[in-house]
């Protein structure tokens, strides 16, 4: 019996650590709608700064002082980031801030190694909380008890802050309806800055408090970021109490789950999230989002098919691309194939995101399923390449059909997180089912048949498929189905009023996007000759998001350019420098500031402006009025 009590308390201690970080993320998202990918980075910087300070300052006061100072210092960095970077892009398309914070995260991962060195750092134990307390023969670390108390205390302070101060009232109001708060004349600039500072403070505090029980290292951010997102979503966005309950739920399920299934930890949080979201689409304590008040006609240049001149230009570009094998070597051709496959992957997500308004955080699942589909067919059934390429993507199609059915019942970030959960479930199956998938050692030896084996032939194949896919998806955008899909994106209520079956249209779009991604994955398997769980992983899903956002989410085919730029740059940087993350992150942040509508989005706007000589009430001017600023 004593064992179960201690295990429960241990779970509570884990929950408290998780809650501190998650609460900050929840507050930031609730008010600013920023999907703050850099939250883990702030957590990590908090730990690093606290490590340096605790090593310098001595005594009990020094230790605790260092923790608090570190949290404040990092909060200051947060303020700086918000004022210099994020403030410029609140009016950018939804999720664009994700790109900015992703760039920051990449930079921070390299910076901490440059500043603090590559070794894992182990900090001091907390003065006064070094030992353990005996509980009927079981030991409970006293630091765990400290954390167990701290969690509810922070929850209480936040509750008081939100319920009893004017600032808290404004924050709650903004969480519920940002536009209304702006209309009432509240200075949102400072509200957002202060909220961001509080959120970052909590993240850094969470990181600093790990010093006595963890090692400080440069991958801490990735270890926590996805998990806290999941906790926030399970709890309900913007709900602090929800985040607390979710943290306790997840931690306790893990603490007791490993007693029965020791391998459960790898997937547990995602299983819980999927289950919760299917039953409660807005998380445990979340509320349905108010219907969007945006008027898309104002913000987006109306889409139109290419004019015949533009078609000729695109065709000419394709022809030029097809001549690459005449003058480029094998390496350039293989990279060309990889870029073409990235284009397929990116346009498939772009179709879902831009045309359907459904941002998936787990799109790699269908890419990877396509790749595994090919690998199964080629290695187990021994089918020829052409058959595998045609049938392999069907696995992506089936996955999309099953998961898409559940996912389209949700919207916004909840949709995104449910797709993430499904992707992680698929990933963990590929990772764990060693006898079939080979686990993380993957499936090797999936090489193309001789007709496609030479780099130039494979390049032409990839380029041809990429062109076909892009054309097909474009054609779909301007088909009746595309119009219906755009209607569901722009106004769900109105589209349903005119008799569009929104869910079915969205589900179809999800399956189309998943199948297309599967085609990319099938080619990828042959390009690399092997398939690994990585091909289904989060980092690939994030890559796809970045490519779409970089190209411009409000464009028809921006993802093509986004994919080419991002992939080419990524491959080139990784090859040229060990600090590729720093440079790539810096580049992304720069792009975000210079092209707040994405590369193609910005070019289109410039072209549009030149065409109309910037009339009054143009999209640019309309923006600040209706959005945050």
């Amino acid at each position: 019996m004593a064992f179960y009590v201690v295990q429960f308390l241990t779970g509570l201690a884990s929950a408290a650590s998780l809650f501190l970080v998650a609460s900050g993320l929840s507050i930031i998202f609730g008010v600013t709608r920023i999907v703050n990918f850099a939250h883990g980075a702030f957590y990590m910087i908090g730990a690093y700064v606290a490590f340096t300070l605790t090593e310098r300052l001595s005594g009990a006061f020094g230790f605790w002082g260092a923790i608090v100072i570190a949290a404040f210092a990092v909060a200051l960095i947060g303020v700086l980031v918000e004022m210099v970077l994020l403030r410029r892009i609140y009016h950018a398309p939804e999720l664009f801030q994700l790109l900015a914070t992703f760039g920051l995260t990449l930079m921070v991962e390299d910076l901490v190694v440059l500043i603090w060195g590559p070794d894992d750092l182990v900090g001091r134990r907390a003065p006064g909380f070094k030992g353990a307390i005996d509980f009927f023969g079981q030991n409970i670390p006293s630091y765990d008890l400290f954390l167990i108390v701290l969690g509810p205390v922070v929850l209480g302070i936040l509750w008081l802050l939100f319920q009893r101060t004017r600032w808290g009232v404004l924050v709650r109001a903004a969480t519920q309806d940002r536009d209304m708060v702006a209309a009432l004349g509240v200075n949102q600039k400072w509200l957002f800055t202060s909220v961001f500072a509080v959120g970052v403070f909590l993240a850094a505090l969470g990181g600093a408090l790990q010093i006595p029980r963890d090692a400080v290292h440069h991958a801490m951010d990735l270890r926590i970021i996805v998990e806290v997102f999941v906790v926030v979503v399970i709890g309900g966005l913007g709900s602090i109490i929800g985040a607390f309950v979710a943290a306790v739920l997840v931690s306790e399920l893990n603490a007791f789950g490993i007693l029965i299934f020791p391998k459960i930890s790898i997937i547990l949080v995602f299983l819980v999230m999927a289950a919760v979201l299917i039953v409660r689409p807005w998380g445990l304590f979340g509320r349905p989002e108010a219907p969007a008040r945006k008027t898309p006609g104002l913000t987006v240049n109306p889409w139109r098919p290419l004019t015949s001149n533009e078609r000729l230009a695109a065709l000419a570009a394709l022809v030029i691309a097809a001549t690459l094998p005449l003058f480029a070597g094998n390496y350039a051709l293989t990279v060309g194939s990889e870029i073409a496959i990235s284009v397929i992957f990116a346009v498939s997500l772009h179709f879902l995101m831009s045309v359907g308004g459904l941002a998936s955080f787990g799109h790699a699942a269908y890419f990877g399923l396509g790749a595994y589909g090919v690998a199964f067919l080629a290695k187990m059934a021994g089918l020829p390449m052409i058959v595998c390429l045609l049938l392999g993507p069907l696995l992506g199609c089936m996955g999309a059909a099953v998961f898409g059915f559940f996912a389209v019942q949700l919207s916004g970030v909840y949709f995104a997180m449910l797709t993430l959960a499904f992707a992680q479930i698929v990933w963990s199956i590929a990772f764990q089912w060693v006898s079939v998938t080979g686990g993380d050692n993957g499936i090797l030896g999936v090489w193309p048949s001789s007709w496609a084996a030479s780099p130039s032939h494979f390049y032409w194949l990839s380029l041809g498929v990429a062109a076909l896919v892009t054309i097909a998806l474009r054609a779909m955008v301007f088909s009746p189905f595309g119009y219906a899909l755009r209607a569901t994106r722009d106004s769900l209520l109105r589209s349903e009023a005119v008799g569009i079956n929104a869910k079915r249209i969205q589900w179809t779009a999800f399956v189309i996007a998943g199948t297309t991604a599967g085609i990319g994955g099938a080619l990828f398997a042959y390009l690399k000759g092997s398939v690994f769980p990585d091909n289904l992983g989060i980092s690939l899903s994030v890559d796809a998001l970045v490519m779409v956002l970089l190209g411009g989410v409000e464009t028809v085919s921006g993802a093509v350019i986004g994919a080419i730029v991002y992939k080419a740059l990524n491959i080139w940087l990784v090859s040229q420098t060990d600090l590729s993350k720093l440079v790539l992150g810096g580049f992304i942040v720069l792009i975000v500031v210079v092209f707040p509508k994405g590369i193609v989005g910005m070019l289109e706007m410039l072209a549009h402006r030149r065409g109309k000589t910037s009339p009054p009430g143009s999209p640019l001017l309309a923006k600040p009025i209706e959005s945050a600023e």
Partner: protein
Amino acid sequence: MRAKNYFVGAAFALLASGMAHSALAQDIKIGEINSYSLLPAFTEPYRKGWQLAVEEINAAGGINGKKLIVVSKDDGGKPADAQTAANELVSSEGVAMLTGTFLSNIGLAVSDFANQKKVFFLAAEPLTDAVTWSKGNKYTFRLRPSNYMQAAMLVEAASKLPAKRWATIAPNYEYGQSAVAVFKKLMSEKRPDIQWVDEQWPPQGKIDAGPVVQAVAAANPEAILNVTFGADLVKLVREGNTRGLFKGREVVSFLTGEPEYLDPLKEETPEGWIVTGYPWYSIKTPEHDAFLKAYQAKYNDYPRLGSIVGYQTIKSAAAILAKANSTDPEKLIAAAEGLSMPSPFGEITFRKIDHQSTLGAYVGKTALKDGKGVMVDSVYKKGADYLPSDAEVEKLRPKD
């Protein structure tokens, strides 16, 4: 401004970068790939190691008079990126062979690439047995003692312990799984009386150490096998120390004696664990002294195990290239099979039967000295003594 013309731009950029490096015809290039950005704690000393080797080789006249150049690429910890890098090294850099890699899945990906493109590949670090056995191929050789060898070394010591109830803690991926599987198999062969009472599989890099320690303690084992390393090991040791998990229990642990993983523990280092590792401070052989002196003179830092691996990888590559006196992969294979050479750990041989080197490892016990973790009672175990019989190896390895 539509779409595809960016292809051309990218193509030109790639072309230009491809032409930028053109070395002299009489140089010999080796392509090296490792997870520099993902695992700097291991790869920084590793890089220093191979750079020292390159310097020594060229100072001694290069390879049969030709200058050795190592072109190094980062794989970011992703098999797909490692293949892109391998392709660049082979197609545009024109390297004579590939070396390096740390993670098992990346080692396998590059090994499969080498097999497909008929390129010689010397795997430095990946531990999975599959590299030389179940997924072995004729183009792939490996330097470090495999999972099986390290398990066999530890079993030799562990089987002498009186403990009968064993629990295991290992990261939930191929390395952890196969380390536990081999250890259990070999251990149960020697000691049929042993019971396996619990196993914990925390996700790699994400251990929630408190509950794991409690769960293991609840099974009340007499001894524990640990396979976690890096930050997971730190968390496990800290929680285990606080909760008294290791008190009165024997612990056998993979890799923990390597300075990369032992040094961060400082005063929290648990005492008396049986570990594999690299006690650079207590190895007193002329070969190692020479290496240590050269390394410390060049870097003003002590070597980690990664330094040894990096150093010996390039030294081995150079020895193979020198003997083959050619960059033809078939001749390199012929030269490497059965080739013996000196190393800081004494003479090693690349076996003909499975292309595994006989580099060994040190087995000893952890101890705390002046607030730092060290290995004591260390004994060097020769790799050749901890491999299964030739008949067994032949059954494990597919025919070329």
